[in-house]
């Protein structure tokens, strides 16, 4: 309680300020007061939670799952094989420099308005942090420890599982935390570009109805999704790294 006191105070203050400013400038269609958003959220709760949340959640989870599988596999491959590293690492890095997401409108043309075009956008935006963090984490393991394992006759596999994986965990989880938050953004952007349901779509659509409170309401839900995913990652992280708590 005491720990989060200051944060709670600031949040309260910010909400109060928002309510106040919003009432003063009185343009609810672009800047609704939080109370208005809350009311609208309540009114829309069924549509939001039952119709739009599931499709956005599906995009986020599928996108994350694909990114994790692909990103971790690629990172492992690059750590295992120097040729793979030399071939792919520059590509992964420079692929990130290419704002592939700017090509998202074209993916939509390619993959259609179904879930896949949005999953592709989500994967594109989350793949990089997972791959690079996992790879850097695997590489970050102490050279001394790896050498020691070698002298004990450890195989590449042993070194991988007993030294590199534990050393990579903190990095992997950092990457996953970034990816989780980006996945929410990716799904929302994907939905802007063409969709039939989803929270991002709904929000955008309410823009066209000048219903400011209804623009914010799905964002609130998206935030809840983001926070929930983040907390899940945090719990997994602290469960799998008990020894860190000692510090």
């Amino acid at each position: 309680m005491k720990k989060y006191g200051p944060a709670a105070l600031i949040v309260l203050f910010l909400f109060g300020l928002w309510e106040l400013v919003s009432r003063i400038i009185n343009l609810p269609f672009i800047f609704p007061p939080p109370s208005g958003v809350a009311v609208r959220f309540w009114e829309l709760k069924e549509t939001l939670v039952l119709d739009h949340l599931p499709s956005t959640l599906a995009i986020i989870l599928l996108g994350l799952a694909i990114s994790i599988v692909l990103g971790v596999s690629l990172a492992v491959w690059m750590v295992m094989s120097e040729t793979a590293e030399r071939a792919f690492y520059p590509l992964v890095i420079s692929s990130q420099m290419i704002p592939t997401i700017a090509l998202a409108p074209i993916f939509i043309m390619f993959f259609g308005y179904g879930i896949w075009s949005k999953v592709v956008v989500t994967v594109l935006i989350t793949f990089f942090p997972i791959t690079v963090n996992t790879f850097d984490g695997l590489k970050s393991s102490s050279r001394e420890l790896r050498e020691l394992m070698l002298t004990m006759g450890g195989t590449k596999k042993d070194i991988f599982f007993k030294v590199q994986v534990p050393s990579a965990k903190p990095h992997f989880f950092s990457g996953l935390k970034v990816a989780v938050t980006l996945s929410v953004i990716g799904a929302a952007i994907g939905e802007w570009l063409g969709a039939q349901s989803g929270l991002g779509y709904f929000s955008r659509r309410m823009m066209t109805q000048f219903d400011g409170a209804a623009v914010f309401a799905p964002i609130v839900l998206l935030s809840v999704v983001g926070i929930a995913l983040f907390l899940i990652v945090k719990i997994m992280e602290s469960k799998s790294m008990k020894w860190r708590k000692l510090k």
Partner: protein
Amino acid sequence: EEGAGEAGGSEEMQDVSLMLDWYPNAVHSFLYVAEEKGYFKEEGINLDIQFPANATDPIGMAASDQVTMAITYQPDVIVARTEQNVGVKSVGTIVREPLNRVVSLAESNIKSPKDLEGKTVGYTGIPLNESIVKTMVEEDGGDPSKVELVDVGFELNSTLISKRADAVVGAYINHEVPLLEFEGYQTANFDLTEYGVPSFYELIAVTSDKTWEENPELIQAFWRAAEKGFADMKANPDEALDILMANQETENFPLEEEVEKESMAILLPLMEGEQGFGYQEEEPWQETADWMKETGLIQNDPVIDDLYVNMPE
């Protein structure tokens, strides 16, 4: 960026920013003609023309006073005003009948709205277009619930030719349709008004309540210049076209002269009513609002008088 300042000071130039409904094309020729010929200058107006990135930006930007005026769609103004109390009102019509069509590639073999059953229709993200499709399919004896609608943003033509949708609604008879033909695609299109949708004003000019209250002279001055521009455009469409072509956004939005020429021919008869350029009748406002209420686009009863004002003669 609001062009306020003290009202009507004829010496002082006042800034007016105007957001178009779309990229400059034939329908906007009158503006460019008036600008080119100095009609706006004569009225003491510095005109700054902007283009929107999203279909609803013009109303939003006008309502939040990011721009002085905007060109937009009549049904949108009704929704904004009656449902959300957005303080915008129409100050003149530009195109008096729907240009909006349901367009499909000829090869899709869609002969009437009924054939849309089981097909995918792309729209620009404005719910109005959903209602249009519903009304048309129903009127044609089909089941609107069997039509799948997807929001495709502004990407109407690319959606169509990449076959991501079988038809699109929101495409204009004077732009997308000739453009598709120009690119070599055979199309079929349906006129909304033939299938139960009332004839609404396709394009109108809006300003915020605030601007209208504080500085009606400015809007009137703008409109006088616009009318002069339109008169010239009507009298000499070729010259108007040349001026437009000279003012086009060459790199971002290059215009095909042929397409624009065709567009001009389609547009001219639709831009002037019996009472002249810009004059708004009550009937289309009332009819459109009634239809919108019927189809559930709006829940509240609109106050028609708040929706528009006519310029004094």
